[in-house]
């Protein structure tokens, strides 16, 4: 109608070939989830070296391990019987296996809670440390630099009922401490060792996460009369939720898989299998007892267990987390 009507301009930007074109993203426009590559070729090329390594050192061994779980085989491989699910059903029938599973769950929960709880406390304290903050951080980060086997041995020595200074202290306090005989003491010892070793990991992530919480928001809440505890649960925790979730997953993986060396150096799964968590049992049955079929079956079950746990974590918790942190 009017002469001022402006005809629609063609898009100025040159359009990318279809396979490289960024797909429409209905989700967030900013935050962690929004970043990504446009298209699929470049990411695949970049991933290739890593994928080849994974194929050689992870997928092929994993598939062979999977196959082993259905075989009864002598170590030298001259006799192979296909036994179907027998290795797995034998495990499910064995009281020792269920005991080991229960133990792993308890151990992982305790390690996760302790690592995260103490890590959070120390991360908070970092803010309050006025002098020597660098030294404070360095000391906290030290355990991470110590090899797990060494850490395990040191703790085993410190708490050894015959020669350990820490054990002597406990005895002096009237506590009948003997991790060589009491399964509970031994379990406590490996939980402490594993948590101590992993503490700094949680700590450093939490310090960074806490640092990213805008002061202005907290101060505004304080002005509105929110007490520290309320400020923490209503403001800080939701804002650091992605980190908390990440640490939860990592701590679970750590407790289930990466504590092998600590167990081996501290208790060797004993006494009376009181610290024989699943990953250690896989090792003993496979590499010490040379029971390849059972060991492989245990790895398969452990893998299923870990995968389902991670899926549950993502389904239950991740959905409630917002990654959109705008500052």
């Amino acid at each position, binding site marked *: 109608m009017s002469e001022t009507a402006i005809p629609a301009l063609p898009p100025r930007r040159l359009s990318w070939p279809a396979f490289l074109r960024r797909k429409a993203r209905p989700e967030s426009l900013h935050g962690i989830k929004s970043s990504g590559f446009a298209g699929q070729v470049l990411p695949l090329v970049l991933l290739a070296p890593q994928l080849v390594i994974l194929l050689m050192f992870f997928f092929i061994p994993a598939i062979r391990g999977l196959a082993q779980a259905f075989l*009864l*085989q*002598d*170590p*030298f*491989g*001259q*006799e192979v*019987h296909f036994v179907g699910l027998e290795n797995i059903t034998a495990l499910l029938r064995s009281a*020792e296996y269920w005991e080991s599973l229960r133990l792993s769950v308890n151990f992982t929960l305790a390690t996760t809670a302790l690592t995260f709880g103490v890590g959070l406390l120390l991360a908070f304290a970092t803010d309050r440390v006025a002098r020597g903050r660098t030294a404070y951080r360095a000391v906290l980060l030290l355990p991470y630099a110590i090899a797990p086997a060494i850490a*395990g*041995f040191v*703790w*085993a*020595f*410190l*708490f*050894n*009922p*015959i*020669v*350990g200074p820490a054990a002597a202290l406990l005895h002096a306090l009237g506590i009948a401490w*003997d*991790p*060589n*005989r*009491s*399964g509970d003491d031994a379990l406590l010892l490996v939980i402490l060792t594993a948590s101590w070793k992993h503490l700094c990991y949680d700590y450093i992530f939490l310090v960074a996460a806490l640092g990213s919480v805008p002061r202005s928001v907290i101060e505004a809440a304080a002005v509105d009369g929110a007490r520290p505890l309320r400020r923490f649960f209503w403001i800080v925790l939701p804002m650091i939720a992605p980190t908390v979730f990440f640490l939860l997953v990592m701590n679970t993986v750590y407790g289930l898989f990466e504590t092998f060396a600590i167990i081996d*150096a*501290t*208790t*060797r799964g*004993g*006494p*009376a*299998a*009181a610290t024989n968590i699943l990953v250690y049992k896989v090792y*003993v*049955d496979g*590499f*010490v*007892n*040379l*029971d390849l079929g059972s060991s492989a079956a245990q790895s398969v079950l452990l893998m299923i267990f870990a995968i389902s746990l991670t899926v549950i974590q993502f389904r239950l918790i991740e959905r409630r987390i917002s990654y959109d942190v705008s500052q």
Partner: protein
Amino acid sequence: MSMAVSRRAILAGSAGALPLLRARPASAAPREIRFWHAMSGVNGERLEEMTRQFNAAQSDFAVTPIFKGTYDELINATVAAYRTRTQPQLVQIYERGFMTMLLSGAVVPVQELMAAQRHNINWADFIKPIAGYYTHKGELAAMPFNSSTPILFFNKAHFAKAGLEKPAETWQALEQQLRQVKAAGGPGSIMADDYHWSWFENYSAINDYQYATKNNGFGGLDTEFTYNRTPVVQQVGRMKRWMDDGLLQTAGQGVAAAAVFTSGRSATFIASTATHAAVMAAANLEWDAVPLPYEEGRTPRNSVIGGAVLWALRGHADADNAGTASFLAFVAKPETQVWWHKATGYVPATNAAYALAQSQGWYRERPTQEIAVKQLTRGEPTANSLGYRFGNFTQTMFAQREEAERAFGGQKPPQQAMDDAVSRGNEILRRFERLNAGRY
């Protein structure tokens, strides 16, 4: 500038070295025999010394000792190497791996190897409990190498303080003594890490108690454990009582049991005779040793061995096998045996070697080193004292230890614990029987 000079110097050096390498005719190079072993520390050095002696004594072969970690790690490495066809000529495997190796199809029985390579060895001269342990169908399957047996070390100072001279011969009397030592302010005893070997297995052999049917496994793969119906159950109860009363301590992972004894923190220490090296090296330790105790009213028999043997692996050229055989013949020589015995504390494997050590006056000098030999050769071995031949022996042993520790910790009464250990052990034996049916 200086870098350029040094690089040139290196080039010149390597150019000079090349003709030297080429000059050596291929035929003069000794054939390499790879020997995988699990001896660490002082005994590892002694083992290397032994291979050097062999290499110096002849020029056809050169034995290369390669340390592969613990016994467990070594048998694993052997399995992995065999499956990838990269196995060494010779491996040292612990006594618990005997059945696995024997039925593996991966080994050449040593007597067969030595006959094929025309080495004359007096097989009848090997000490009975040693030869018996490793003989299958009348032939030694592997060469005895480091054989040991447990004896009882004790701290003379702690015993003297309680007015005692030395440990009594029976378990019952020993318990009274340990209570006296404790009452006099002394420490309890220390339990070795491999306690199952001395407190259950050797205990059963010495007291002539059956451990399993079919002559403890010698008579067939269908053997079944029976130690839950013998005084082994009381032995577990005794250990628990001693622990409760502070007569027996467990070392755990933070410290070696031997170190607890050598530092004077324990009254007695039942351990392998190979512990001599550590005990003798201890400063300010007044110690002595006696044979293992036995049950009141029993006639003590021979104890059983532990340690390891040398297995020749299949899949090597005849010229390699000749070298392996030549080294094994060297190992079997009385002179080598005596040298090894003196250097490490392991027992000599042949009567000739034992006689040679005696004639050299070694036992006047070191009387405690004769205890193991005497204990091993005490009387004629019975069906219960010849040794143990179980498939998956390491696995049955771990199940047994786990259950025994449940009894020590008070989670199960000893009888229940040993019943469970036996039923778990039998299940493990059945798995082995199924895989190896008709092969033994």
